[in-house]
């Protein structure tokens, strides 16, 4: 929960969902461990974490499909702990889409409205509006087994949205789709959300999806909330080792601060590298235990430290040898063995047309340059 204070917006939008100190235990595991957070009206908020981190459980607690052992859930300011799912002002889109196999598209989308005993004409009208919203016109009479994966997901989305819930809960809605379709549906989800303005609470294990889709992200692990922030904050300034590596900042150095003065700190890694960094405002110096660097920020130069190219004096230079080159098309992933250590760096080299990459070859000595701003300090 160390990251819950990173958000500091000037205007305060209304809070539409509040999770207060929620604990949920299953025999042998604590799936949700004292989590508190607030979700604002109209945003797309994602719970991100590896499978088993408790994100789905937390979503199910919000939906009322599981009861928490401790803590409160507030929807639109009202405590809903005691309400069954069908009385909560939220609706869930399930990963398996969970369409009713014995009802057609219209029947599925209208299900909840029938339960609310609305007049037939109104049901028809509202269902049709949502069918149009999700671009399913012309397929009203089809049954789930006649639909493709993406279409089923659209129907599931419409089925929940038609109820006009305060919060729409999405339980890995795209996980079952193939990659291309997933991308397409991400765009669709975002468009639909912008159109209806409903708050989306999304659960995912796919960091790319979370980054592209969300307004804010909460990273979870083992039932604990590690960090909350905008996609850029989470990606660029992860606060813990886990978040850093989960977001792809694969170069992580452990070590400790050896001295601090004049707003600068001197950090020494376990490999013996020393680097001078500006002292962070939001961390205690003695808690800093390492830093992470995204592979796309590191620059590679042939040769050794004695022949440096241009760059700031505060850049960190590391000598190494190219161990392996993985050609990935738009960029290459290069593994560099740091000389005299066990440490291997991962560096992304974008393809470019003016510099033929003849210098990148296995076994070649290189210098990896870490620009001053690339190093992100970690506390855990």
């Amino acid at each position: 929960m160390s990251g819950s204070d990173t958000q500091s917006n000037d205007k305060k939008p209304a809070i539409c969902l509040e999770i207060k100190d929620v604990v949920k235990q299953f025999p042998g595991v604590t799936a949700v461990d004292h989590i508190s957070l607030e979700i604002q009206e109209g945003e797309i908020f994602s719970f991100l974490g590896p499978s088993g981190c408790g994100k789905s459980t937390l979503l199910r607690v919000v939906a009322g499909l599981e009861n928490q052992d401790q803590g409160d859930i507030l929807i639109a300011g009202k405590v809903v702990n005691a309400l069954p799912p069908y009385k909560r002002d939220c609706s869930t889109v399930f990963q398996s889409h969970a369409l009713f196999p014995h009802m057609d598209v219209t029947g599925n989308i209208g299900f909840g409205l029938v339960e609310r005993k609305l007049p037939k004409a109104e049901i028809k009208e509202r269902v049709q509006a949502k069918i149009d919203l999700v671009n399913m016109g012309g397929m009203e009479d089809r049954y789930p087994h006649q639909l493709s994966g993406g279409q089923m997901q659209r129907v599931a989305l419409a089925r929940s949205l038609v109820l006009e819930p305060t919060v729409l809960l999405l339980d890995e809605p795209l996980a079952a789709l193939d990659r291309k379709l997933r991308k397409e549906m991400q765009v669709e989800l975002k468009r639909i959300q912008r159109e209806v303005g409903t708050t989306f609470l999304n659960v995912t294990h796919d960091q790319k999806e979370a980054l592209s889709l969300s307004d804010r992200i909460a990273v979870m692990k083992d039932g604990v909330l590690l960090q909350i922030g905008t996609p850029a904050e989470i990606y660029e300034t992860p606060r813990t080792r886990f978040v850093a590596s989960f977001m792809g900042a694969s170069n992580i150095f452990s070590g400790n601060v050896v001295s601090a003065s004049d707003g600068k700190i001197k950090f020494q890694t376990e490999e013996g590298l020393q680097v001078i960094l500006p002292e962070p405002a939001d961390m205690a110096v003695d808690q800093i235990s390492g830093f992470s660097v995204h592979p796309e920020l590191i620059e590679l130069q042939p040769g050794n430290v004695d022949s440096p190219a241009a760059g700031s004096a505060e850049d960190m230079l590391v000598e190494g040898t190219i161990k392996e080159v993985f050609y990935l098309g738009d960029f290459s992933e290069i593994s560099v063995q740091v000389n005299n250590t066990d440490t291997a760096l991962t560096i992304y080299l974008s393809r470019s047309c003016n510099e033929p990459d003849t210098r990148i070859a296995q076994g070649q000595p290189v210098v990896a340059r870490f620009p001053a701003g690339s190093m992100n300090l970690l506390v855990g």
Partner: protein
Amino acid sequence: MPVLDDVSASQSQAQKREKRKLALNIAAYLSPIIIIVIVFVFAPLAIILFFGFLKSGPYGQIIYTFTFENVIAMMGGGYGKVFLRSVYLAFQTNFLCILFGYPIAYYIARFGGKRKILWIFMIIVPSWSSYLIRLYALKTLVGTKGTINTLLINLGLVSEPIQILYTNFAVTMALVFAWLPFMILPIYAALEGLDRSVLEAATDLGATPFRRFFRVTLPLTRGGLLAGSILVFIPTVGEWLVPSIFGGSKIMMAGSLVAHKFTQVGNIPQGSSLAIMLAATLVLILYLTIKWGGREALEKAL
């Protein structure tokens, strides 16, 4: 042109080879069952179909004259009534089996937990125990000198044993007793096969547990209900043992008529025509069921 001919010739030769291979394989794997089906299923059915239109002599011999006597006898008088009663009893049994079977199937599927296997075991054992012995056991319980009557008299609740045997009630109870397991198991299987997330979605979309049952659970377990109904209905229509043990001569069913004609009276033409009628009734019902519920349910049931 000659080249083309060559190609088509070799093609048809290849086709021929394929055909021969298939025929050989069919002969190798399927000849025993084909022989059984032709000789011991179709031939006997053809025979009784033939005999059903013959006359019977006073000493049980068959008189080879073509007649509609047997069929007409059935359409009119008492036989038709017995057939109707059989179908009615079968429907009633089916309905009661669903009524009693659904709750226990639902309980096991939903709340069985670790004891599921034990519960299922307790259902399967009766379904595979000797049918005759089970009926005998039930008779021991409800007979005139049976346990229930003995108990009632000893407790002073009644002075005379109450007549349970040879009533409609006894026959119905015995039918339900005999066939209930065969209804529970397919319903249970259907409930187990339900996608939990679909149920959760229904709740999430605002259905109360009660409404959810009727709008989602029940329609989605229709296959199980249908399978169970086939398993219960078919043998019940043709039932012989239950009416003969629990109905005596008072409550006859179609099966008992057939058995009576074949084994007691030895009137083969009449027995044959009754058997054919019974089979035809069932085929008709099965056909309607398949049309209504699909072949899948039937094959699952069997």
